């Protein structure tokens, strides 16, 4: 069975790239996108490893569905914070990232 290993490795790669992006990005919207992809990378590892037994393990599937729904909440709340910050301060970056323009 190589399919789960291929996808689990892709999940690790996605997680790492997105985590680095999340740490280094300045625009808050990009950070929100990166955070979503970090989640997707974790989900991919979980679901890929759940696909190894036959039939697939349903528990990680349920965990990931919970994660997807909580993820959309987190995104909506973060975007509301971003909109509020942009409306109040006119910038879409956090205060410590603004001096670079």
């Amino acid at each position, binding site marked *: *069975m*190589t*399919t*789960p*290993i*291929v*996808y*689990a*490795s*892709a999940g690790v*790669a*996605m*997680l*790492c*790239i*997105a*985590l*680095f*992006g999340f*740490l*280094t*990005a300045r*625009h808050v*919207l*990009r950070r929100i*996108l990166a955070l*979503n*992809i970090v989640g*997707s990378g974790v989900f*991919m*590892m979980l*679901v*890929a*490893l*759940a696909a*190894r*037994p036959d*039939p*697939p*393990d*349903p*528990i990680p*599937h*349920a965990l990931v*569905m*919970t994660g*997807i*729904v*909580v993820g*959309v*909440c*987190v*995104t*909506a*709340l973060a*975007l*509301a914070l971003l*909109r*509020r910050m*942009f409306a109040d301060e006119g910038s879409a970056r956090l205060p410590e990232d603004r001096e670079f323009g």
Partner: protein
Amino acid sequence: MTADAAALDILLAVLLVFLVWRLLTLSDLFKATILFIVFGLLLSLAWVRLRAPDVALAEAAIGSGVTGALVLDALRRLGAHGAVDEARPLRLNLARLSGGLLVACLGAILLWSVLSLPAGWRGLSAEAMAAMPHSGVTNPVTASLLNFRSHDTLLEIAVLMLAVLGVWTLDAEPKPSAEPAGPILDLLVRILLPLMVVVAGYLLWAGGHAPGGAFQGAAVLAAGGILLHLARPFYLGNHVIIRLVIGFGFAVFLAIGVMLVVGGGRFLEFPSRHAGTLILVVEAAATISIALILLALFVGNVREGAGRDAP
């Protein structure tokens, strides 16, 4: 496994990683958002390949659809000026270098732990399958969500409600006036909206024995609401009726749990004779509430009397 299936898997995996790289390095955030939506759709293909059709449905409807609509809406409110980020890659400094090294270490550890898992490792699938006859449904993912892990799902609905409260509290800006949508979008809504309601009902019903369930149905219903909002903008506000409907799913779920305790059982431990009915009741109530919650997250809250669109 045949060679062409392996080729498809590798192609899809490489494409996903490439998309992540591109959308984190593009300077135009609008393009990055479009790539993010494409990434979500390809991810749901990957879930199908990993034999997780329930997750694929949820990803396509929520992860890609609703999240994409939310991000696009936020971009529109930021305007052309707010949506530009500097080009990548950024200058390498000590903080970025050490961050990169730490992330690379994490990746190596994760990769090693994935590869070193024993091949015969079965997770909890044997236990889940053994408990299936008592769960009241035949779709193992629905059984896990609503029966084996019902505490999680109950609290998840509470988290959704908290997110709505947060958005209502923060989002007090006047809405930019939307252009009148025109006859084509109107026609699309007229045809698609009834279909979406039917599909949501079907997904809810099918969840017991096939891929589907409350979350997927609610996401389709919410997508219909978002489409309607785009064609004919409306404001939900936080009227008491809206609040009641948003709390309805959680209340029904909690009430059933308390009833089971009063009846001599344990909290949310469905007796296997009535489990199917109870799960369907909880799911139906949750579908309505989650759909309205997702719609409220998109529509947001508008200051009273400000930013009303011209008719």
